[in-house]
């Protein structure tokens, strides 16, 4: 192909977007460090405001960001800085948080791309206005160490000579009992997750069941059976936390409640459907 490639003006800085809102309290911005040393500022588009920061173009390509975010310390710094800006902005009105490392090649590109999504941002902002996200994780304790890895609890005796008659059948019965108990506890765990989710969904405007977190990341002796995010009216906060306390009592499961958060889980495409 010999078509001339349109000359792209060399952009000196890329644009990092933290969040989109209807109105930004500009007084809070100077106190926010953000990701780089450039000031955190407002980029208006389509009756909306994006909270942005300039990032040197050299740092903005995909490779250097992948490198940056694979360093745990740098990743933590970026996540904290991103979250700090989002939280500060959301404290003064509804905000649609952007994903970490949302970058555009130039301010003009950012304005175009965000503008094309304006209708979606309006929907999201309507949805999260006056609402917060609560995270609920339910754990059930794994069976005792004796049945770890599916092994049956057998008395640790080493019988000399042939085993007494009936020992073989008794052993099979014991194994069967262990299998049944495991099945029962699995069923009970799923039921607890389902019940908890159903009760909390009733109090929420929208809810999502997120992917369960790796057991080994959390704790070997308990299994996560629910990792839910609930979008709840600010006025319903007390009812929601109360419902969690009641569920804790009724099910005996370990239920972790975190929040209120800026509704990260309800700002994307998925959040529009409120389901997944």
């Amino acid at each position, binding site marked *: 192909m010999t078509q001339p490639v349109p000359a792209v003006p060399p952009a000196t800085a890329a644009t990092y977007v933290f969040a989109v809102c209807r109105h930004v309290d500009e007084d809070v911005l100077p106190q926010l460090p953000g990701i780089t040393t450039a000031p955190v500022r407002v980029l208006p588009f389509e009756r909306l405001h994006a909270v942005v920061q300039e990032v040197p173009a050299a740092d903005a390509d995909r490779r250097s960001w992948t490198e940056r975010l694979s360093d745990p310390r740098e990743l933590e710094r970026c996540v904290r800085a991103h979250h700090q800006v989002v939280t500060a902005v959301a404290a003064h009105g509804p905000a649609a948080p952007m994903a970490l490392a949302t970058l555009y090649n130039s301010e003009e590109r950012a304005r175009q791309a965000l503008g094309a999504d304006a209708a979606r941002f309006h929907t999201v902002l309507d949805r999260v206005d006056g609402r917060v996200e609560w995270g609920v994780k339910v754990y059930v304790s794994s069976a005792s160490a004796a049945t*770890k890895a599916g092994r049956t609890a057998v008395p640790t005796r080493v019988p000399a000579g042939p085993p007494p008659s009936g020992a*073989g059948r*008794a052993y099979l019965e014991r*194994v069967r009992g262990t299998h049944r108990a495991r099945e029962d506890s699995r069923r009970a765990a799923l039921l607890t997750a389902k019940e908890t989710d159903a009760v909390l969904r009733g109090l929420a405007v929208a809810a999502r069941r997120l992917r369960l977190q790796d057991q080994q990341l959390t704790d070997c002796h308990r299994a996560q059976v629910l990792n839910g995010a609930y979008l709840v009216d600010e006025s319903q906060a007390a009812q929601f936390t109360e419902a969690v306390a009641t569920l804790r009592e009724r099910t005996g499961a370990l239920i972790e409640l975190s929040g209120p958060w800026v509704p990260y889980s309800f700002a994307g495409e998925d959040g529009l459907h409120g389901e997944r």
Partner: protein
Amino acid sequence: MTGPRFDVDPDTVGRDLLALVLTVVELLRQLMERQAIRRVEQGDLSDEQVERIGVTLMMLEQRMTELCDQHGLRPEDLNLDLGPLGTLLPRD
């Protein structure tokens, strides 16, 4: 994934290989146990057959425990994390 790995480290390769072999043996043992229980539940085995299968599986279980003890392996070491598929052997 953060599951137990079988890194090829000269100091631990022997022990890791043993753990891997015992994991496979344990998997087969548990499969046999399940199959035996299914047959017993179907009721198409004689009392004598049930007794013999039970004793055999019991001895196999004891021998596994002894082998693990001898090599300082815990029951939970005999498992593989298959990522999104969960673990090879039931964990709880």
